[in-house]
């Protein structure tokens, strides 16, 4: 990987396009093993491809991925444009579901990136946090409640758009709901990761063609293609 510090900083300075930071916070616990993780990988890969095909989104979207599985939350990809970080990582499923830790890490990354934008004088859109899980969190309880409080506060201050999405029958929709004060969490239909990520990339493209601060309507109609309440 050649996405080193310098290139990332240089890109930040040279590229005048307003950024759309998107953090994917994904469940990679043991229960995701097999077809779910394969479909998730394929979905993320298609998401990357779709963004790269759109010239405006390519220079605007910055994607980071935090996974929660194994014993810990892990940052698989830090914020950078897909020009610098063109290939989707391959996710492996195993272990526990430390969701709170992962969301806290994701929020930390977002905060840090926003500071970098501000320091360099780069405009940015309200960041997005996609939270996907197929189970219930079993990390540290206080971390989880801290993550929920931070997320809710940011959403209420209009500083974050959050998309909590449950996968399969065992996803803890109650916890996901606590993360989303403005609209109810959605449930993925079956394993329609591809449809979800296709929708997400379209929404990112649409946002990248607006101006920061402008309200962009979400394609609610499109949600029906992959999600349900």
């Amino acid at each position, binding site marked *: 990987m050649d996405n*080193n*510090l310098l290139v990332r900083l240089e890109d930040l300075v040279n590229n005048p396009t307003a950024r759309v930071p998107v953090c994917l916070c994904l469940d990679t616990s043991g229960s995701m093993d097999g077809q779910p993780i394969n479909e998730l990988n394929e979905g993320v890969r298609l998401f990357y491809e779709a963004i790269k095909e759109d010239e405006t989104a390519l220079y605007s979207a910055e994607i980071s991925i935090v996974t929660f599985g194994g014993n810990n939350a892990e940052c698989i990809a830090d914020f950078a444009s897909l020009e610098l970080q063109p290939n989707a990582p391959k996710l492996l499923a195993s272990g526990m579901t430390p969701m709170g830790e992962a969301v806290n890490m994701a929020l930390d990354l977002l905060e840090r990136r926003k500071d970098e934008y501000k320091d360099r*004088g780069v405009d940015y859109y309200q960041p997005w946090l996609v939270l996907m899980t197929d189970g219930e969190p079993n990390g540290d309880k206080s971390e989880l409640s801290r993550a929920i409080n931070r997320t809710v506060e940011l959403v209420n201050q209009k500083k974050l758009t959050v998309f909590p999405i449950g996968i399969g029958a065992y996803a803890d929709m109650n916890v996901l709901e606590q993360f989303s004060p403005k609209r109810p969490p959605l449930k993925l239909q079956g394993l329609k990761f591809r449809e979800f990520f296709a929708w997400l990339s379209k929404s990112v493209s649409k946002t990248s*063609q607006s101006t920061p601060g402008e309200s962009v309507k979400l394609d609610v109609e499109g949600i029906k293609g992959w999600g349900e309440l």
Partner: protein
Amino acid sequence: MANGTSKKEDYARSIMESYVREWKIFIDTCSLLHFASDKFWMNVIPLLRQYQAKIIIPLRCIEELEKHSKNAGKPDLAKKSTDTLKILQQLIKADFVEIRGEKTDNFVDNVFQVVFTKFRMTHKLLLITQDNDLAKDILALNGNKSVKANQVNVKRVNQYGFLSGFSWDEDKEKSTDEGNDINPDEIFRVCKSVTLVADTPMKVSHIPKEQETVYTPRGSIRLIKEVAAGGEGIIYTTNTPYVAKIYKRENNTKRKCEKIKLMLTKPIDCEGICFPVAALYNSNKEFVGYLMPKANGKELQKSIFIKPLFMKNFPGWKKRDTVELCVTILEKIKYLHDRNIIMGDINPANILVVSPKEVYFVDTDSYQIEEFPCPVGTNNYTAPEIQRKHFADFLRTMGNENFAVATLLFMIMLPGKPPYSQQGGEDPIANIIKMDFSYPFGENSNKKTPDGPWRYIWSHLTYDLKKAFYNTFRKGGDNATESTRLSVDEWLSIFKYYLELLDNGKFGKQDKMSEELFPTRHKKNSKVVYATCKLCGSEVAENQCQNGICRECLNKGEVYKCKKCGKEILFTNYQKYVRNVKKYDICSECFEHGNEVRMTLQCVDCGRSFEITNNQYDYFTGRGLDIPKRCLACREAKKNQSYGSTYSNSYSSPRPSGSSRSSGNSGSFCFITTAVCDYYGKSDDCQELNILRNYRDTWLRNQPDGEEIIAEYYNKAPLLVSLLKTSEHYEKYCEILWTRYIQPCLDMIKKGAFEECKQLYYKMVFFLESKLCKEE
């Protein structure tokens, strides 16, 4: 009070306020005697109080008033003058007015000339007068461009007691529209209120698609192929050279239809402006869209505004090409403005570029025509006064539009960078409303200019252009309000002049880099000496270089991973070439962690407590050694005894414990020297050691990296000393250290060569490390 009037009043007050706040204001006799002068004082006094400002009146004016007050031939004038003098007396007492000048001043007009010429170097000066000739004379001072002076301005008191410009001044602005022999039939009306025609969808029985026929009043046309789908409709090629826009059902409104029909009433024909040429109907004679010339090229947003795409689409462009592009675009906007067409939603997706001479304006059906508003807008291009308003509900003014024009020009010249993006900025809308423009002009700067190439690009623009941008975007600037913004004609003359300077080579003569799109340094200043950076080869101001390397390169360097935690570390060229430090193996967090105290123990010999840092702990456990039971001093004392050194006397009494870190005599920085002095039988408070300690505490510690170096020594030195003392070459090393390093260091300190001393001391540690650690 009607809303409209109060708004106008607010506006007039805000202009007055901007003058009170930042300008020195002078007033002339005739304005003092103006019938609305009472109102003027009522308007201006709250502002004077707020900003603790004063209005200046030359003594000659007072004398003139006194003369008038005795004029028996003109009783009205005499009365007015007497009253005015009374008022002035109160105002002077209240500190709102100041009388300046001497009896020897010539006649009044001349006073202003003299004062304005002199003080405009240091102040922004405003003269309030009703006298046309005086106004012209004062304004003529602005023509003198050779001096680096502020603009002067002249206003008159109007009937409302606020400030207005001079009518001849406004006339002149209008008459600069040279060569505008536009047929009045081509010019649309300027309207004041939005049309009442409904903007709700009409019933349409069928929306035509590919391969279907549509109708114009002159005949039928076939839609061939869909070429683009936008928010409100689909564009098709046709069996004519034109393309057709067919509205989606929900966007096909009565208002759209009426607007297109109105647009077609005038012969608008300008190469590159894709203006409707015919309305289109389906077979049931229902309006479905319009026909227009075909556009070519790449959207500004997807070419000029993103550097990699810019390079890909237009390789080989130079600054002159973007300047010419601005001229081309401005000429088209001028064509529209001359016909009272307001583009409204000026944005980089609606302008397509083929070459600097060939551009296309699309989405023309959104333009504001007469009472039909432009219903859309883009934040970055929206003037502060109409931010957060709903675009479909009002008609934009030419002043609103001129803000969008200025923004577009700025973003072409600084490719893609919005004028209000800045360091530590808020959201773009808030930045626009605050008008906190961050690019510097003259001495003025808010110091928040975006990093990287932007400040360089800015510095290479022409003076006129920087001034125009600055005054347009900066709050309080000469062209910063709706009524004062530069018109397309004014921008055109600035850009044409710029192009001329580039094409005749005059601009390149000052600095060749000004001809490039992306300069890599500030524009050259004739007073500065330039050097070529050893690393990147670019020319930079010599005093910005260190060891022949430019600042940019000094901040760059090699990126590698921390040996402990794997985090990326940047080893800058500054560290490498200027400070000559070694690459750290570990990142600063790991370094600090290493120096943190892991445990506090009690010395079994002297009973004092001592600390073991994480590094020391790792060192001992890593070598399979036990954690020491004695403090450092006792350990050394013990070692010396077992050593049987003849010089062990100086260690006979335990020294203060190591827990008092860098303070005290046995401070770590001089640890090695202490050991060497010890070898030479010198005492702990010998002259040499005191010199070094003094150097450490008074000079080294105050260097930017001083604390770090001292801390680093603290970390290394005790280990090195213990290794030194157990080394089989102990004697030899002590002699080398003394003659090659310590002695020369002392000489350097005596000569005041502190930096060299630091370097040499550094080398000494390095030498010792390389010898002793190898032995291990």
